[in-house]
């Protein structure tokens, strides 16, 4: 009996042919339905379903609007903070530059004066030179270098060493050439006025001359030593 039912699958009979047609129709219908699914056509959707669809679309729309609002707020906040950060960064950079010039860790250029101190008799000692530098600084010199090798900053020391003077550990030779960046006319005035640099030097037995310059370039750097004991208090 089982044998017969298997064989019957291969022997055309009317119901079997009908079954084949039905299966073919099923395949055709499935493919048609799958194709129809791909198209965004609502013509075959029931009214109830359409209403539901519309409702869910409305809800989604509302949710998305809320989301957009939230995200916009977030974005604006981020933009604001970015702007603030940029500003702070710019200020910090400016401050760092200013401090670097003060500390002598970068080169500097700008208007200024060049003071040449001639000392043929070797009368000028470290104190005399320091005096001249102090006078320049008092009149607003922002960056000072001596002989192009010794940058004068807060920690720089002046020392007598036999015939020579050491500035910040560097030996400098005569004649001394002090380059100072600042308001050139004010600086030149500080050199020339009675009791100024010129007078001070000539009392010690040397001669000083000053030239105002539009552009002084200081390339000498100070040796920076990290503080060993001092720590920022804030």
């Amino acid at each position, binding site marked *: 009996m089982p044998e017969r039912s298997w064989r019957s699958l291969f022997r055309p009979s009317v119901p079997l042919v009908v*079954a084949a047609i039905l*299966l073919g129709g099923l*395949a*055709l*219908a499935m493919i048609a339905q799958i194709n*129809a699914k791909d198209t965004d056509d609502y013509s*075959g959707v029931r009214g109830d379903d359409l209403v539901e669809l519309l409702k869910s679309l409305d809800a989604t729309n509302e949710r998305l609007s809320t989301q957009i609002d939230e995200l916009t707020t977030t974005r604006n906040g981020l933009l604001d903070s970015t702007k603030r950060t940029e500003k702070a960064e710019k200020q910090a950079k400016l401050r760092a530059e200013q401090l670097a010039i003060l500390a002598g860790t970068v080169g500097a250029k700008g208007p200024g004066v060049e003071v040449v101190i001639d000392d043929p008799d070797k009368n000028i000692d470290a104190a005399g030179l320091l005096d001249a530098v102090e006078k320049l600084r008092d009149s607003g010199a922002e960056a000072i270098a001596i002989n192009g090798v010794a940058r004068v900053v807060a920690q720089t020391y002046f020392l007598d060493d036999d015939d020579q003077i050491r500035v910040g550990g560097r030996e400098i030779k005569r004649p001394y050439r002090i380059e100072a960046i600042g308001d050139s006319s004010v600086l030149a005035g500080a050199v020339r006025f009675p009791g100024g640099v010129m007078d001070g030097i000539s009392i010690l037995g040397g001669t000083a001359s000053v030239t105002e310059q539009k552009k002084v370039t200081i390339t000498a750097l100070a040796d920076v030593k990290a503080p060993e004991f001092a720590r920022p208090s804030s």
Partner: protein
Amino acid sequence: MIPVIGLAIGIVAGLVLKPTVPTDLQPYLPIAIVAALDAVIGALRALGERRFNDRVFVVSFISNVVIAAFMVYLGDQLGVGSQLSTGVVVVLGIRIFANAAAIRRRIFHA
């Protein structure tokens, strides 16, 4: 073998002709397809149990499709179309699963 040939012809025809579903039939076709699938799975089970009868298959196929489509139509008329079609799909799905489980047990003995 002949039904398989019919199936192949149907697939090829579907792919080549790219038929579109008539608008009037659109709500009923998916349900009818599920109902037909139920009949086909039932036939496969019967085939495996060596009690396949082509007459029974043809009748069950046609009646399944017609009844399923009619129920959806009726539901639409009564205003419960989507609920009723969901119910029909659930029932047919349960039947498909049951038949598939029977086939599986027969093939894998598990």
